[in-house]
Structures are given as structure tokens and as C-alpha cells.
């Protein structure tokens, strides 16, 4: 969309489908740049994966592209922090990657090196320091890596904050609107209403493929448990480095030790991943395994009062990178989806590079790894 284009008849410059954290961030960014924007969602703000996530703001290093996006976005969150209202509960508690044995300590050093070269401060801790800093971890762990700039927040309120900012700049929010069809500059609702936009953004998370068939996003179900208040029990987000010792660590379902302190003093316990599970119900077996894993690292969790358990669907792509950019075959359709377990972290960065692409501005990080057309590129190159 260049500046030479004539004024269009479309009601909006951009219509965003999905009022989760990604859609909210995109709306905020669009409005900030003076675009006329509307956001539609069939439910409440942040009621999809945003409601079910752990709300962490983290750097990750599974790939350079993942690192680039998470670090870029994490910095944006740090810049935003002073403006975040209290109920967003932003805490820079830091992450500790926990190493259970010497093999994992090697991984600690590798990460330390990787992050160090890229300007992300980290600290390697030995077993004694780890136990001192997190006394409720079991004895016998090998050590860990502290990433002090990582944080947590409460995602539904963060999404709401971003949407309110967008609305203050004129963005329109329509909740309780079920979308039947999108594309070619239109959003058609189940009630037969049609909204026209220069651009439509599919930020519908795990449901993105329902609106745009062919998107390679699959539901990756996760479980969470939250406890009653135990102030002082946990200071940092903790996550394990472990992988199954055997090389072929691929089964259909998996769990990992991941706990977070909330500002309320409640402990949020995750995480699990299931492939092909379509129903929302809590899966007893997975939940049990997740909690058993958590107790292995922090035995005292077992006696704590669990107030709620719930599930959510992450939007997962085959190469673990999100889809941010135009959809091949429909120049007016953009995607902002496929964020798997990093939606909260990368929402702000996603919004920046997505709206850069919409307005023709120069993105601050390379965007090729996240383009929806990359799948076609790979096929073309094959």
C-alpha cells in the first residue's frame, strides 16, 4: 500500500480479526500510525490462548529468527512497562533455566554464550547458588541459567490495555461478533453483516485456518494449574532444560516443568503440549503427568492448594515460527498468527513488523523468516 494510492471507499484501513494479545497489539500499532482500524472477536477480549497462557516475556534461542523476534519484542515490552496499568501485573522476575545434570549444564553454558554474544545479560549459577536463590527446588540439581530481563504479566488485562489505547485513537472494537468469512478486503459476519477494509488481518490464533483455509496452523493444547496464595515461595520463573535422554524424544504428548510466581503470591504451574486434541476438557492423564513433573522439581508444590485447572490452544506452525505478513493469493489479507507458546512475548514485535509491511515502512528486524509465503519459497527451492 503506497502513498500514491487513491483514497479508498473501504470503511477501514485495517480490520483485525481476533482480540487476543496479537490482535490487540496490531490494533494499537495501526492506530498509533493513524490507520482507521476495527477489531472483531466472537468472545471477550483475550479469551483464546491469551486467557490460557503463562504470560511470560522471554527471550528464546531455538533459532536465530526466534531469538530476533523475542528479543525485539521483549525490548518493546520494557519500553511500554511504565505505561502499563496495575492490573497488567508486569513483574520482571527473571527466568531460571534449571539444569538437572552435567549434560544440561553444558546447555546452560551454550545458552550463556549465545545470549552473551547478542547482548542479553545472563548468569550461570552452580547448584549451591541455585538452591540459595530458590530454596524450594529439590536438592541434587546441577545449577541453572538466570535470564534477569525476562518477566511475566497478566495477558487478558494487557490485551485490554492495548485495545483501550487503540480505541482512544479512534479504533473500533466489536465483541461478540462471529466471523464467517474474510478476504478480498471484506469481513462477513455470521449475522450477514459486511465490514470492508483495505487490509484484513487474520489474528485468530488457533482458529486462523478456519477463516483462511490452507494456513498451516494446528492446535497445540496446553494445561495450567494455579494455586492459592503462597507469598515468598517462588521468586523467579523456573523452566527445565531437560529433554528425554533418548534421542527420539517425539511422542504425541509432552510435559515440561515450568512454574511462575504471580504478583498475588499464587503459583502458576505448567506446561503441557498435546497434538491433535480438539476438545477443551482437562485431560486427567496429562494434567497428572504435568503436576508429577512439577513435584519432581519442587516437592512442596504437592501440598499446596490448587484452586483451578484449565486448558488452552496454542497456534502451532511446522517450523515453530509465527506467520507475519501477506497471505499469498490475496494481497489484502495479512496474517498475524502461529505464535505457539510465545504469543505474549512476541505480540508487540509482531505488531510492529506487520504494520511495517502494511504501510511499506522499513521493519527493524529481518522479516523473511516469518513470512507466510516462506512455505511456498521452500517448495520452490526444493
Amino acid at each position, binding site marked *: 500500500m503506497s502513498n500514491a494510492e487513491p483514497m479508498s471507499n473501504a470503511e477501514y484501513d485495517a480490520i483485525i480479526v481476533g482480540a487476543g494479545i496479537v490482535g490487540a497489539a496490531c490494533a494499537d500499532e495501526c492506530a498509533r500510525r493513524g490507520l482507521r482500524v476495527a477489531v472483531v472477536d466472537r468472545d471477550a477480549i483475550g479469551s483464546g490462548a491469551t486467557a490460557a497462557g503463562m504470560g511470560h516475556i522471554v527471550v528464546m534461542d531455538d533459532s536465530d529468527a526466534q531469538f530476533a523476534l523475542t528479543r525485539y519484542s521483549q525490548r518493546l515490552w520494557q519500553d511500554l512497562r511504565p505505561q502499563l496499568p496495575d492490573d497488567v501485573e508486569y513483574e520482571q522476575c527473571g527466568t531460571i533455566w534449571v539444569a538437572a545434570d552435567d549434560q544440561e549444564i553444558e546447555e546452560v553454558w551454550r545458552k550463556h554464550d549465545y545470549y552473551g554474544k547478542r547482548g542479553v545479560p545472563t548468569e550461570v549459577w552452580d547448584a549451591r547458588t541455585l538452591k540459595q536463590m530458590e530454596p524450594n527446588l529439590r536438592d541434587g540439581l546441577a545449577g541453572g541459567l538466570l535470564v534477569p530481563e525476562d518477566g511475566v504479566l497478566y495477558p487478558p488485562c494487557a490485551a485490554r490495555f492495548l485495545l483501550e489505547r487503540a480505541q482512544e485513537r479512534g479504533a473500533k472494537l466489536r465483541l461478540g461478533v462471529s466471523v464467517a468469512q474474510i478476504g478480498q478486503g471484506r469481513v462477513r459476519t455470521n449475522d450477514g453483516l459486511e465490514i470492508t477494509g483495505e487490509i484484513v488481518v487474520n489474528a485468530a490464533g488457533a482458529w486462523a485456518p478456519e477463516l483462511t483455509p490452507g494456513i498451516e496452523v494446528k492446535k497445540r493444547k496446553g494445561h495450567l494449574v494455579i494455586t*492459592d*496464595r*503462597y507469598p515468598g515461595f517462588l521468586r523467579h520463573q523456573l523452566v527445565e532444560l531437560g529433554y528425554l535422554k533418548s534421542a527420539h524424544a517425539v511422542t504425541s504428548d509432552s510435559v515440561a516443568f515450568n512454574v511462575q510466581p504471580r504478583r*498475588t503470591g499464587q503459583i502458576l504451574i505448567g506446561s503441557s503440549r498435546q497434538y491433535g486434541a480438539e476438545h477443551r476438557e482437562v485431560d486427567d492423564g496429562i494434567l497428572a503427568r504435568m503436576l508429577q513433573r512439577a513435584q519432581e522439581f519442587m516437592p512442596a508444590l504437592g*501440598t499446596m*492448594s490448587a484452586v483451578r485447572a484449565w486448558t488452552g490452544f496454542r497456534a502451532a506452525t511446522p517450523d515453530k515460527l509465527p506467520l507475519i505478513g501477506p497471505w499469498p493469493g490475496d494481497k489484502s489479507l495479512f496474517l498475524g498468527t502461529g505464535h505457539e507458546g510465545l504469543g505474549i512475548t512476541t505480540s508487540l514485535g509482531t505488531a510492529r513488523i506487520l504494520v511495517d509491511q502494511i504501510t511499506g515502512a522499513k521493519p527493524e528486524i529481518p522479516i523473511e523468516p516469518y513470512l507466510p509465503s516462506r512455505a511456498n519459497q521452500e517448495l520452490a527451492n526444493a
Partner: protein
Amino acid sequence: MPSQVTLTVNGLRVSVPSGATVAAAVAIAGQACRISVTGEPRGPLCGMGICFECCVAVNGRPHCRSCQTLCESGMEVRTDE
């Protein structure tokens, strides 16, 4: 079976009839059970274990519903203070 039971609430000795609840002992000791998220003192509301306003720590275990916990000799009860 003793007709009176002695326990402590925040270090204060309280004597109650056998079969009395910890909630009653806390009230006799003149204490509120807990402090709410915004700092309000709270005591029992429903009396039947569903409202969680009566929660106290019993023998070091937090979040015990005192209206459903029977007093035992030597019990140490602590409220939010």
C-alpha cells in the same frame, strides 16, 4: 474424652468445649481470620466451607477452613496479622 480442649491462636491460649471449631476459637480469641487482598480484616461468612473467608494456618498448614476444622489439644492456629 476431655470436655475442654486447649489450643493457641496467634500464641494466645484459648480453651473451648470439645467438638468446637477452630473458627469459634479464633472468634473467642478476638482475632480476624484473615486479611483480604486489599488489606481488609475478614471472618467467617458461610459457616459451611465454601466461602474461604475463615481460612487460617493450622499447625503450619495454610488455607485451612477453620469453620470445618475441629479444635484439637495443642493445636497452633495462626491468622493473617
